[in-house]
């Protein structure tokens, strides 16, 4: 029986954790299997949770979020029989599969779309916790945006520097209003649960927003430009499907592997012009072809679009 551990923020964050949940549910619906799930309440619980799951013979154990990295590094060797899967960071252990996503690629596409949708030429980015991982989103987004609006401006804010930043919709909303006041008319929220506040405020203020991780277009139909989805659901689904035979090592989920992408559906269809679709498709093709390489912020902690 597999297990899935959600990070702080909880499985119904409409975002990252919920994507993982959807993957598990898809597996459950298809196979009729059951799985164990657990939500983190605090930083200090992670180790106990992992150990308890491993102790009770669950296998594989999927953990969502880079914050499990350090703990998993410590726990995995104690349970060599158990396979672990971690999402969003790399843990170098023989029984761990690390799923990492090409956030810059997906974000680049989001940036292209934002650039075309923006009337003011100013767009916003609201990140959750101020960490290199989120700068990856920001940097790709900025690059994509600049590719269509070279003179445009990207306003950036982060909600905080601690995990609480993932779960502060009030602050997210205030930041969105502040960005609107500064002229932004499309705001990309890479902020977990905080993003809900961003999307809400954007809808209230009559500007566009871009969701993240899960498809969030339905939250405010016609007001969310698109969502940069990370197919966390696929990672979870495949891990569950592989079961105890899940492959250790690094698994790169990029555009080519359909690991990241933009969500297009009925909810945002009225917002998307054929030109936009064409531009996005073209950028996507060039990225896959390697003609465009969106910069990975974490490779050198800098962003050429700044």
């Amino acid at each position, binding site marked *: 029986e597999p297990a899935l551990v959600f990070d702080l923020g909880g499985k119904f964050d409409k975002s990252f954790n919920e994507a993982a949940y959807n993957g598990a549910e898809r597996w459950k619906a298809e196979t009729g299997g059951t799985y164990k799930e657990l939500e983190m309440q605090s930083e200090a619980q992670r180790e106990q949770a992992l150990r308890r799951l491993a102790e009770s013979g669950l296998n594989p154990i999927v953990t969502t979020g880079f914050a499990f990295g350090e703990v998993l590094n410590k726990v995995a060797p104690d349970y060599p029989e158990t396979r672990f899967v971690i999402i969003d960071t790399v843990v170098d252990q023989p029984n761990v599969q690390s799923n990492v996503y090409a956030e810059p690629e997906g974000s680049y596409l989001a940036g292209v779309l934002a650039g075309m949708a923006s009337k003011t030429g100013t767009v916003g980015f609201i990140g959750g916790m101020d960490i290199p991982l989120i700068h990856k989103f920001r940097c790709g987004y900025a690059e994509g945006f600049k590719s269509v609006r070279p003179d445009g401006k990207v306003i950036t804010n*982060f909600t905080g520097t601690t995990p609480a930043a993932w779960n502060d919709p009030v602050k997210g909303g205030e930041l969105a209003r*502040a960005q609107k006041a500064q002229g932004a008319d499309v705001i990309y929220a890479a902020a977990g649960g905080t993003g809900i*506040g961003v999307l809400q405020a954007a809808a209230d203020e009559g500007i566009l927003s871009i969701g993240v991780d899960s498809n969030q277009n339905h939250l405010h139909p016609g007001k969310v430009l698109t969502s940069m989805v990370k197919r966390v659901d696929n990672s979870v689904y495949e891990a569950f499907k592989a079961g105890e035979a899940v492959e250790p090592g690094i698994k790169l989920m990029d555009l080519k592997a359909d690991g990241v992408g933009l969500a297009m559906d009925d909810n945002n269809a009225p917002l998307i012009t054929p030109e936009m679709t064409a531009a996005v498709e073209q950028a996507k093709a060039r990225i896959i072809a390697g003609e465009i390489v969106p910069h990975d912020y974490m490779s050198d902690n800098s962003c050429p679009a700044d």
Partner: protein
Amino acid sequence: MDYGTILQILDSAVRLMTPLLLACLAGLYSERAGVFDIGLEGKMLMAAFSAAATAAVTGSVWLGLMAGVLAAVGMSLIHGLAAITFRGNQLISGVAINFLASGLTVLLGQSWFALGGRTPLLEGAARFGSITLPGAEAARAIPVLGPFYAEVVSGHTALVYVAALVVPGTWWLLYRTRFGLRLRAVGENPASVDTAGVSVPRLRWAAVAICGVLTGLAGAYLATGLSAGFVKEMTAGRGYIALAALIFANWRPWRALGATFLFGLMEAVANRYPELDLGPVTIPSMVMSALPYLLTVIILAGFIGRATPPRAGGEPYVKER
């Protein structure tokens, strides 16, 4: 910083001030009557949850508001029972109330909505919409004051204006009415009220109930005005900041407005400028968020002004000759 930015920050400060102001005034009633209340946080949280849950289920923000107020009054009842009827330790009761709210909101939320302690997103009539005051758009043309009116004064949700009215209302009630005189007296020397033939418990119960109503409004605003639904621990220490503001305001209504506005402004500025660059020094966001607490300690230490709490505060009243 241009005028537009200033207006935007002020606008944000007003929104962020509102829950603090309502909670602070709530604490003012309770503490002026001699019942210390460190459970503002819990009452607010409970109210936020009940308001959001009810609004989500019924689709009516007004029903949500009522539920929020009822929930907070319910928590007040527990506090009153401990502090007034059973003459228990008011501080401990407050601590318990904060934990109770923190646990119950998630427990009930999870069991009702299975959204990890969250309520569904509120939409349409389940949220407070913003109210555009008359002439707001027309006023924009007037230089300086016009945009101020349109941006900062107009365009808030109903509870913001309610909170603003509660300030003069509280002042009037406290200093111009019989009830206020007795309320202030019971917090200073309950024996004086008792020997004057007025019931001490009744006055304190009234104060605690008003405290419940106002924390109810504060919580409801948080979940249905400021944001669109409840998330766990969404009060995020605002109850304690309200308490800090109450001390800062020296238990006076107009100063409560000033103190909570200051704290709201600090939050708004911190939101806008996480790393506040003041030329030679850059203030990290942690300092900004810690500032209300730091200021409170400084006030309490008497380095700026002097906090003089109601004299009978925190003490259960026992008849004595």
